[in-house]
């Protein structure tokens, strides 16, 4: 299930998920999005624009509702960024979904956007990167979460953090119970990206 809330192109993401073995439905329907085995939240553009569009389809409530029931959600690119508390882009400070603490800020790099294929350093326990730990993935962004601030105590599972570097370290992916996200675009990362999507699909009940 792919949440269609007007941000960017959902069709190539849908095809990539199908390629990875999923039965995909693209929808903004609340009930359908709440009930799906897995929900992908894509995101392209400015943090504020994405949040405005998400709120317009009550996407915040959909993500909250799914997580309350332990139902998997995968955020992609800005769809990952909005899971944090805030995003600051060119002086515009926007409230995010606040599933994770922290603020998304500009990368301290000489060349921005961070555009192209980069390596990542996955957590050893990562399910998303199983078998593709040494592959490159396609990034295109200027902003990112550059710190992880959530302490998770047992019995909750330890968050699996995958870091990448452009000017400094930033979170390339997070797996935190039912909530996962990637800063890069698996749907644009060729075979490695398809494999990552297949790995995520394999975690769905």
């Amino acid at each position: 299930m792919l949440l269609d809330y007007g941000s960017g192109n959902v069709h190539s993401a849908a095809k990539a998920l199908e390629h990875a073995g999923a039965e995909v439905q693209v929808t903004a329907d609340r009930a359908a999005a709440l009930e799906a085995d897995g929900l992908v939240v894509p995101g392209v553009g400015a943090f504020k624009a994405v949040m405005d569009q998400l709120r317009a389809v009550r996407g915040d409530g959909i993500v909250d509702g799914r997580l309350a029931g332990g139902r998997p959600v995968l955020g992609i690119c800005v769809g990952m960024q909005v899971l944090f508390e805030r995003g600051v882009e060119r002086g515009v400070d926007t409230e995010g979904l606040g599933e994770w603490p922290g603020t998304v800020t500009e990368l301290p790099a000489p060349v921005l956007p961070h555009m192209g294929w980069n390596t990542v350093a996955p957590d050893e326990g990562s399910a998303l990167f199983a078998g593709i730990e040494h592959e490159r993935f396609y990034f295109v962004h200027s902003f990112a979460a550059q710190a992880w601030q959530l302490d998770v105590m047992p019995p909750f599972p330890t968050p699996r953090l995958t870091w990448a570097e452009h000017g400094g370290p930033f979170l390339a992916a997070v797996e935190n119970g039912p909530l996962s996200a990637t800063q890069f675009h698996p749907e644009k990362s060729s075979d490695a990206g398809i494999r990552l999507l297949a790995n995520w699909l394999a975690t769905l009940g």
Partner: protein
Amino acid sequence: MTLAVRVIPCLDVAAGRVVKGVNFQNLRDAGDPVELAARYSDQGADELTFLDVTATVDDRSTTYDMVQRVAEQVFIPLTVGGGVRSAEDVARLLGHGADKIGVNSAAIARPALVAEIADRFGAQVLVLSLDVKRSGCTESGFVVTTHGGRTETGLDALEWARTAIELGAGELLVNSIDADGTKQGFDLELTALMHEHSRVPVIASGGAGSVADFPPAIAAGADAVLAASVFHNGEVTIAEVKAALAADGRIVR
């Protein structure tokens, strides 16, 4: 830095077909954009650029369908340029699966277009494409041209790049009109100048004739290299370019 330098083949399309020959062996249809895109992706292309040279509005709708078919089957980033005049054109191309949009003459005619696109879709979708020629009439020594280099705008290439980046361009596709078609190598002076003065990635274009032409462009500061005929003719493969870049100490995928 662990980011790989990018190698990008560029395909001219009209009415949803690839025009200008592409000489892959065992190709069922040398003009089919999906088949060609898949071939280049398999060869290791890091992105694909489609330049829409369509002349009529009717043909343009065929281009949208083509973008969609490619995006649904080839999972690497796609840039589409040529004839983009408005934020609505951009919305439509992105909606059909393009990841980045090249804007050239329409932005020269109306620079506010750059801000309109960047504000709505983010700087990362907007590739400012510049056709640049050497000139004694501008401070940087390079002038922006239109109509394939036939018309000089009087705009200093460096000034225009700065303005466009300020307005929200996320990347520069710098095509040297002097080098284009010569097969004598990229214009390294132009590449270096653009790199030194811009914070966004620079794609060097125009002049590639052999594998040996690519490493100097990266050494001059380009983040990516783009070429058309040298790949289409089969003279050089993406893998050969990447091997040459790696041998020169660059990181490649």
